[in-house]
């Protein structure tokens, strides 16, 4: 019998479609893994009974039309799921049960998948280590004392530990790619507008984008195909024909021009990261791609820009959590204002408070121009940098993160050092362009390291193809000893 722990999503889909295994058997396998993986704390909510029922229903119908026929999938707890608690990792939504389903998850279910559970994440997706979750931090299966990254840390952890065959996350400043890099998995942030934001708890609306997190590039293409698509309920959704990313996936990359931005050689970058980058360049060179040195001069301003834009939007997006319509309400307070203040004071964690306060500050009268407008201007400069470069190159290759997974608690007392984790991932969010992180090697301690490919808007197929070629050449196959079981 096939070892499902070693099977990719695509392989499991094929096993189900060729009737070598039933959906129920697959579901039971993952449920068993989840039960044995409780120590990782990657799940906030499980819905095993519902999953088993869905699997049984699938098996009785045997409808193999979907891309994800009979596949149980756990998703980040930022996607609203109908009749299943959705918390965004926050106390303020501890008991929130949506009456609606997010467009992206609905797309997955339309392709034959069903929900396995909801995955832990940083509170309102604000964090890079999964340590800001109200439901406790998630452990990286790579090492007991390591963070899985964030904010889609629960997703990355569950995926790396085979608690779900694939998953989806959201990426506002690196929240898919950084945890993918930290856990030796593949994560893609699509072009802004490719996946609908309808039904996803909002963090920063102009940056948020849902994307796939998978074991390999093929699975990534498959998941992206399933989850993306135009949605008239999201005014920022791009109206275009659906792509067949998996069918069009190939390794022919010779002749492609790959840009290497000098500004990504940041100060104090560990030698291992630099070596990994060089290795990536070599592989592309050998595959026939043309390496071109490029400059993205405003790169170093991306992070400060992000830490104005994202909190500003968040401060407004999170105003709806006031204890009136849904979620937590404090019992303290004798009038409306006091109720608001206690509810939000008790309901939000420290990092969310920091960002809401910063966001409120940069939008407030007297500071708006100096911070918010300034950041919007620099955002244009950053986007212009990319627009310029993509006139000459097909894709850009950079490291995904400035380090491998760090230790739990290592950065919790220093917000800035935590923020610096997103230094390579944030620019793609600000420019609204797609970027993928794939595992490319390990550091001296054997912790995975990722490499990132960035392209111009809507060129997902191109970076998937380059990633596919690189993946083959790197030959990286993560094998964890399942120490947590």
């Amino acid at each position, binding site marked *: 019998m096939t070892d499902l722990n070693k099977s990719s999503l695509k392989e499991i889909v094929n096993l189900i479609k060729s009737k070598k295994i039933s959906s129920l058997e697959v579901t039971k396998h993952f449920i068993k893994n989840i039960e044995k993986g409780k120590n990782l704390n990657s799940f906030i909510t499980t819905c095993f009974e519902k999953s088993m029922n869905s699997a049984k229903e699938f098996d009785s119908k045997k409808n193999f039309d979907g891309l994800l026929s009979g596949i149980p999938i756990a998703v980040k707890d930022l996607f609203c799921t109908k009749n299943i608690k959705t918390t965004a990792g926050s106390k303020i939504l501890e*008991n*929130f*049960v949506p*009456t609606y389903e997010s467009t992206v998850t609905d797309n997955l279910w339309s392709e034959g998948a069903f929900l396995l559970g909801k995955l832990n994440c940083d509170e309102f997706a604000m964090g890079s280590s999964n340590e800001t979750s109200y439901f406790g931090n998630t452990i990286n299966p790579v090492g007991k004392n390591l963070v899985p990254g964030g904010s889609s840390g629960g997703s990355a952890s569950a995926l790396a530990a085979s608690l779900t065959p694939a998953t989806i996350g959201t990426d506002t400043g690196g929240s898919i790619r950084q945890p993918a890099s930290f856990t030796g998995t593949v994560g893609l942030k699509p072009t802004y*507008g490719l996946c609908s934001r309808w039904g996803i708890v909002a963090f920063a609306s*102009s940056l948020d984008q849902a994307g796939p997190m998978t074991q390999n590039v093929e699975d990534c293409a498959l998941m992206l195909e399933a989850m993306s698509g135009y949605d*008239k309920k999201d*005014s*920022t959704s791009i*109206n275009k024909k659906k792509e067949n990313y998996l069918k069009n996936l190939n390794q022919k990359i010779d002749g492609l021009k790959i840009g290497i931005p000098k500004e990504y050689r940041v100060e104090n970058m560990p030698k291992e990261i630099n070596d990994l980058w060089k290795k990536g360049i070599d592989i592309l060179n050998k595959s026939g791609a043309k390496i071109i040195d490029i400059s993205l001069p405003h790169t170093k*301003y991306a*992070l*400060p*820009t992000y*830490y*104005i834009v994202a909190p500003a939007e968040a401060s407004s997006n999170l105003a709806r959590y*006031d204890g*009136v*319509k*849904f979620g*937590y*309400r404090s019992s303290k*307070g004798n*009038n*409306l*204002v*006091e*109720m*608001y*203040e206690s509810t*939000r*004071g*008790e309901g*939000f964690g*420290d990092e969310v*408070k*920091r960002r*809401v*306060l*910063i966001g*409120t*500050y*940069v939008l407030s009268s007297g*500071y708006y121009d100096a911070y918010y*407008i*300034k*950041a*919007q*201007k*620099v*955002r*244009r*400069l950053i*986007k212009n940098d990319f627009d310029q470069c993509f006139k000459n190159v097909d894709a850009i290759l950079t490291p995904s993160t400035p380090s491998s997974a760090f230790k739990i608690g290592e950065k919790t007392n220093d*917000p*800035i050092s935590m923020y610096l984790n997103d230094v390579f991932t944030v620019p793609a969010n*600000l*420019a*609204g362009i797609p970027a993928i992180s794939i595992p490319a090697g390990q550091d001296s301690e054997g912790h995975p390291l990722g490499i990132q490919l960035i392209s111009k*808007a809507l060129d997902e197929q191109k970076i998937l193809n380059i990633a596919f070629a690189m993946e083959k050449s790197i030959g990286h196959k993560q094998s964890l000893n399942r120490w947590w079981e």
Partner: protein
Amino acid sequence: MSIDKNQVKKVAKLSRILLEDSKLETLSKDLASILNFVEQLNKLDTNKTKPLSSVVDKTLEPRNDKVDDGKIKSQILKNSPNKNEDFFIVPKVIE
């Protein structure tokens, strides 16, 4: 520009977040260091740059004026921490 404890209190008031006094000190320090970090942008001359608020290259797509939503009172009220059959209930508003 930096931020002091009084400003933090003011911003917290504006954000409707009750801060514990014990946390005010650390929080003010954190916020000051974040602001200090983002102020790097001041090194850039952006006089001739237009602000960018959306990266989507399209204009607003309107919908038709059709009533196709609402009439879901029970769904709307379901998650509220305090409601009756018809209304959300909140503590008295003090004008």
